[in-house]
């Protein structure tokens, strides 16, 4: 039985449990819901939850365990001779899985019976041709071992799916019976349901945390591999970036870090004044009507896909800067430059600065403004001397969040600043950033054992640490600011 149908049946059981549980609780008090401990629906939910939750937990656990078990069992059937030149075990296993699913398709479309499939013989039958007829293309001829493994694989999986459905439905029924037996008017159903809800909330927050931890662990793991093959001092302090897929690469990250920081600095130099001044105008001077139009309009900037910004940088800003600034000043004649990417990225992060700062400035209590105006200060003096100092920690937080956005940006840099890793002070020269190099190291035909590829993980981890640091700093500052009033 497929997973889909199992889930559907469990859900139907739960719905039935809701109705029956509610009814039983009501009957136990003679239909007078005032004599029950909880509202009738809580008794229904109690039964439904006991039907669903354990069954789904068993289902999830089963699916993980099954995958692991089948993989191990079938892998043991493959012999070293089956693994051809230039291939490896995981490629062969991929073939086994595809063959097994092809056989399954053949059975379900009626081209073959289960017995026929078991009786297939790789040396006699044209398996490739038969599978081609049911729409499963196979690259090479099937060897006997692989066929046997695939037949075995298919058999285990189809048997397992039956056991799985039985186990899950049994758990669902046991849960149903247990909760239904418990149900009567004096049972504390509300507290039980609320406990389960609490558990659900905890689970969701755990998933978010676990994902972060998982990302970090996978990065750390691969980074460890990288530093096993490449010296960390050369990575962190090397000033040359020239990866070479034949080996002997120089993978110093300093040019990339420099490019990242340079582009981000220009972006912030554009976005912070513009965003902050826009926020001040909108929160302190603009009429509510203007604000209600202008604020969403500025936020549209944040919704433009970065690739579109990249095109804008490549087609418009880059040539413009080259023809009107770089060439006349004799600073170079490259269309892609740090300045191009920085300016366009600055425009992109304006809404991050302006929108957050606007909210923060609005959160400064009106009583402080009144106090200042009441002392004879002008609105401008009030903003400079009272409102901005009060909002400053929050604004710094907003700027740091924008900075981590700028550091992680890729597309604008690819199209705007180019891909040449260089250590230079000239803002009109092409440079590149960490993110761009991560992309270029991982695209194309890559060998995940070579330092040239693994360096991407080390770069990613470095970037992650930088932006995480900035985010923690920003959160810390914002939180400290919140404590200041009330």
């Amino acid at each position, binding site marked *: 039985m497929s997973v889909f149908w199992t889930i559907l049946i469990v859900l139907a059981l739960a719905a039935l449990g809701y109705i029956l549980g509610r009814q039983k609780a009501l009957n136990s008090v003679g239909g007078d819901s005032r004599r029950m401990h909880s509202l009738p629906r809580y008794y229904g939910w109690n039964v439904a939850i006991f039907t669903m939750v354990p069954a789904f937990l068993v289902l999830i656990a089963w699916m993980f365990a099954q995958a692991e078990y089948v993989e191990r069992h079938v892998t043991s059937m493959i012999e070293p001779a089956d693994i051809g030149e230039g291939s490896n075990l995981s490629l062969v296993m991929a073939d086994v899985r595809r063959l097994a699913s092809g056989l399954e398709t053949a059975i379900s479309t009626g081209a073959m019976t289960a017995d026929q499939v078991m009786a297939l013989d790789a040396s006699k039958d044209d398996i490739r041709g038969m599978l081609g007829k049911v729409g499963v293309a196979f690259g090479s001829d099937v060897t006997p071992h692989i066929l046997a493994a695939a037949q075995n694989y298919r058999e285990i999986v189809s048997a397992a799916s039956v056991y799985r459905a039985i186990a899950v439905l049994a758990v669902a029924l046991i849960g149903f019976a247990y909760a239904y037996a418990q149900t009567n008017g004096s049972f504390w159903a509300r507290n039980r349901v609320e406990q389960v809800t609490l558990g659900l909330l905890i689970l969701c927050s755990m998933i978010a945390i676990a994902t972060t931890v998982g990302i970090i662990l996978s990065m750390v793991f691969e980074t460890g591999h990288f530093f096993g093959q490449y010296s960390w001092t050369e990575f962190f302090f090397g000033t040359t970036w020239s990866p070479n897929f034949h080996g002997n690469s120089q993978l110093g990250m300093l040019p990339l870090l420099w490019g990242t920081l340079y582009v981000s600095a220009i972006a912030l130099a554009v976005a912070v004044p513009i965003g902050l001044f826009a926020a001040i105008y909108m929160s302190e001077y603009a009429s509510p009507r203007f604000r209600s139009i202008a604020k969403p309009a500025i936020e549209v900037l944040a919704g433009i896909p970065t690739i579109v910004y990249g095109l804008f940088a490549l087609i418009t800003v880059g040539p413009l800067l080259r023809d009107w600034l770089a060439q006349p000043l004799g600073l170079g004649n490259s269309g892609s430059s740090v300045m191009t990417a920085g300016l366009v990225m600055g425009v992109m992060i304006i809404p991050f600065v302006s929108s957050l700062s606007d909210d923060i400035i609005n959160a400064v209590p009106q*009583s402080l*403004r009144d*106090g200042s105006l*009441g*002392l004879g*200060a002008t609105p401008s003096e009030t903003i400079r*001397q009272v409102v901005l100092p*009060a909002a400053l920690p929050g604004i710094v937080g907003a700027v740091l969040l924008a900075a981590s956005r700028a550091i992680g940006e890729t597309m604008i840099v690819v199209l705007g600043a180019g891909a040449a890793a260089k250590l230079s002070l000239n803002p009109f020269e092409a440079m590149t950033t960490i993110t761009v190099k991560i992309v270029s190291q991982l695209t194309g035909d890559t060998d995940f054992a070579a330092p040239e590829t693994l360096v991407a993980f080390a770069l990613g981890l470095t970037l992650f640490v930088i932006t995480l640091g900035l985010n923690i700093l920003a959160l810390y500052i914002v939180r400290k600011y919140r404590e200041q009033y009330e």
Partner: protein
Amino acid sequence: MNDMRIAERDVETNESKISARKVQVYYGTNHALKDVDVDILDKTVTAFIGPSGCGKSTFLRCLNRMNDTVASARVEGTIKLDGENIYDAKVDPVQLRAKVGMVFQKPNPFPKSIYDNIAYGPKIHGLTRSKSELDGIVETSLKKAALWNEVKDRLDSPGTGLSGGQQQRLCIARAIATQPEVLLMDEPCSALDPIATAQVEELIDELRSQFSVVIVTHSMQQAARVSQRTAFFHLGNLVEYGETGQIFTNPKDPRTESYITGRIG
């Protein structure tokens, strides 16, 4: 009302400091204040009393044009400070507010040091030429607000760290520091405990020797304790205005009598 000790009523001067004629205030289409005529005397404490929403705070905010900061508010009529109409186009509301200081309902110290809170007004108005002169103003303002002894050793600590009563006295000191001629107080004790209230009331009585003080209050006892003149507002009208003792003991208008005896409000 036995606890109402009616303070000495000797008004030292009968010179009018502010005179308002036919003042109307509208919030959008809502006519919040109708035909108010008041003469506020110099070096006198004037109390505005009345039930919530009667327009007393609105009128107070007209006296230093704080209503200008409310977009929907519109003020008509004339209010003269020393004979000059403060709603005249020639009058800069910012300059006016330096002359007519204000203390608010909730203590609102700036998130700065105690010293900088007091020095704020003198600095923006350029009242001092040297640091020592500014130090002098800070000290005298804090002394007048009866706060100096409590904070003189920690002038650099933040004003927000003081207790509620201290914060309110800090705000009064801040208002005094710009050397205003009139001090407006909008329910200055409503967020304070009785001890802090008593300190602020004592302070108000002392301030009377230097400025004209206008106080909005919900507490009739407070009005009776601190003021020489009382104005009773009801539903946007000025019902009765006169000497505090007369208002509380012998009101002319039946509405005033109903309010002070607790029948309306």
